[in-house]
């Protein structure tokens, strides 16, 4: 329900609350974001002026806070003095959000404070004016941007390193967790410090999962979770374990093809030489092949031939 030609201005006020010291709430194994209650302290206020055609604004949330979202709309052709506006979250209207909006300074203004305390608080918030104009705010914790679209391939018995890196431009996660896809569930990987097979190493914005002694059963999807105060965002890394036979087959095919080609070429040359004169210097270079292998297989004749002058 958007008026195409209408310019929407939305203002977003962000009140971030800080506690004394950052503490990662919840251990690495917890999947529930912490519920923090405490007196909100106002720290820096960021406002984003939002103009233009795109009516979607992405907001990165790393910790529980109270967020004030504000939308401003310049109205349509006829500007009634009084319209109704309401808020939506994830598509469904919020219960008590519908209220009348008055026209002030040729603009309609809709503002509401939302208390984001946990992962459920994140999502897609929309302010809607009179069923005519809409602005979307996507509240989400930072995700790993560079997602590798093809699987990491490794071999049985080998070890592999799966890596996730949060970009430097995004807030660094408090810690990282790893999960392994098990059917539709995700099972946490929590290796003991001296576990022979798994080893997790976190360093700054990067996390590395080393899996040793791979077997084919280790293939599948792995998830690295960036842990923030507000929640955990997952990023998928695929692993594929194959045996060495798999690349060996094309290898042998190509080597065979090379052998055949070289033999054919040298055979052709020999028959041609036989057909014309027995005065060719073929033996010369053949005698000097540095390794007697495929190419030398066909021509082991090292006798020098007499040249017809």
């Amino acid at each position: 329900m958007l008026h195409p030609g209408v310019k929407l201005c939305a203002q977003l006020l962000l009140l971030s609350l800080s506690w004394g010291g950052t503490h990662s709430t919840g251990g690495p194994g917890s999947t529930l974001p912490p519920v923090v209650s405490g007196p909100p302290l106002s720290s820096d206020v960021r406002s984003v002026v939002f103009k233009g055609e795109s009516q979607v604004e992405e907001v990165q949330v790393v910790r529980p806070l109270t967020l004030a979202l504000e939308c401003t709309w310049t109205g349509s052709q006829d500007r009634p003095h009084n319209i109704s506006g309401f808020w939506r979250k994830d598509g469904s209207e919020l219960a008590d959000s519908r209220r009348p909006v008055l026209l002030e300074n040729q603009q309609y203004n809709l503002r509401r404070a939302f208390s984001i305390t946990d992962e459920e608080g994140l999502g897609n918030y929309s302010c809607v004016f009179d069923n005519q104009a809409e602005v979307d705010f996507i509240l989400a914790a930072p995700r790993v941007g560079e997602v590798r679209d093809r699987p990491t391939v490794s071999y049985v018995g080998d070890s592999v390193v799966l890596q996730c890196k949060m970009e430097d431009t995004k807030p660094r996660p408090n810690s990282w967790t790893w999960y392994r896809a098990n059917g539709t569930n995700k099972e946490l990987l929590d290796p003991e410090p001296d576990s022979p097979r798994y080893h997790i190493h976190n360093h700054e914005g990067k996390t590395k999962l080393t899996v040793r002694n791979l077997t084919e059963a280790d293939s599948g999807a792995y998830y690295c979770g960036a842990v923030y105060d507000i929640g955990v965002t997952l990023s998928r890394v695929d692993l594929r374990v194959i045996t060495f036979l798999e690349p060996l087959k094309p290898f042998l095919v190509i080597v065979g093809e090379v052998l055949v080609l070289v033999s054919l070429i040298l055979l052709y040359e020999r028959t041609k030489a036989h057909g014309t004169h027995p005065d060719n210097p073929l033996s010369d270079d053949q005698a000097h092949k540095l390794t007697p292998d495929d190419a030398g297989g066909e021509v082991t004749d090292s006798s020098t031939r007499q040249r017809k002058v």
Partner: protein
Amino acid sequence: MPQSPTAKLAHTPPDGGWGWVVVFGSFISIGFSYSFSKALTVFFKDIQQDFDVSYSEIAWVASIMLATMYAGGPLSGMLVNRFGSRPVTIAGGLMCGLSMVAASFGNSIIFLYVCIGLIGGLGLSLNLNASLTIISKYFLVRRPLANGLAMTGSPVFLCFLAPLNQYFLSNFGWRGSFLILGALMLHCCVAGALMRPLPSAPVPPVENGSPRGREAGTQGTKLKSNCWSRVKIVDLSLFRDPGFIIYLIGNSMFFFGAYAPIVFLSSYAVSQGVDDFSAASLLSIMGFVDMFTRPGTGLLANTKWIRPRIQYFLSFAMVFNGTCHLLCPLATSYPSLVVYAAFFGIGFGMVFALIFECLMDIMGPLRFPKAIGLVTIIECCPMLLGPPTAGALVDHYGDHRYLFIMCGAVILTGGLFLFVMNVYNYHRIDKKGKAKDQELQGDDVPQQERALEHMPEEGPQAPGPGGDETGPGATEEDGAMGEDGAMGDHGRRSADDSRKRSQEFHDITI
């Protein structure tokens, strides 16, 4: 009929027939040599993760491979001179193949340095030298075209290898990919099998026991000791040839500025606001244009208007290239960058199609193998210094423009230097030719000898068919400035027999 001229010449270049098959073999061989180290970069990220090293450490693999390919020039030149192109190419192909197979089992970065970098690089160096040499043996009249066609291997192979490597990486990981790439490199052995050595004339006993006779095979191993005593890995007498020095200087200048724009083009495009994917496509555009420029340049260089003064054509190509880089800072949007990439491809292709041809022109097929060996190992320095210097410029000023200006200025200066020095050199050679013409006015010159004048460098020291030592020389990136075109021209004009010609060649060049 005088004995000496025919005895001196190993053969008349066929200029066709099986020669085109040899060109195809060289195409494959040169293609692998130049494009392989560039195409390896696809695997670096994965290897970097597995071995836990920094990106610059893994990037050294490609640098070592390229550097060894160049530095191995003199050695490969000597081997080609001794054994001929075919065994050397096959050996090179085997070395490369085995090195990649070994690398697929590697567990440390040093192992990769040695396997891929050193052994692989040496194999490629053997391939390169042998391929270029055999072209100079099979072609004379159509040599520029043959060179242009053979050098097209580089962009064509790069065009195929890059996506192929991506495919292998997705399906087999980097280890499996190295294994398969090792098998693919064995196709250099196929290329080597195609390089049928030319029959060399028998050497009469009065001739100095040259490696040529040994090459012919009729003498068996008798002349081996003679050969080894004559074989030098580095022939410093080449430095007495002004044409060679001019070529070398201009070439080095070209190489200094040639690679850096390629390395930094994507990041420059990104800094101008182009998205990653489009920035990467710029290099593909350049490669694509390059693919068609090289044979075209070869064809053009073969025409009767350009061939006699082919060194000017090379200097023109370098000037074009340099100007292109100088104008690059003006390109700030994606369409203008595409135009730049296209012109870059044209300039690049032109230079590389001519680089070896011009050196062959200056030195002639006999001295070419040693010359290319020297040229490559000397060019190793500017080639390796160029990109890091450019990178330092970018880091210091935070702006890519200075990089392009520097590279463009260096290449432009090199091109102008070549042009000016060549004017002098051609003039000098013409003068000497006229003087010699007057001397030998009354000689009885049979038709055959006149025809053979086109190969002035076929002197007694020239090895037989396999003897060309095309050094790894001039990685295509080298703006080798061949200046010897004058000799061919000169040869055609003068009516001297070729024996005197080869004598003159040494006189003139000293």
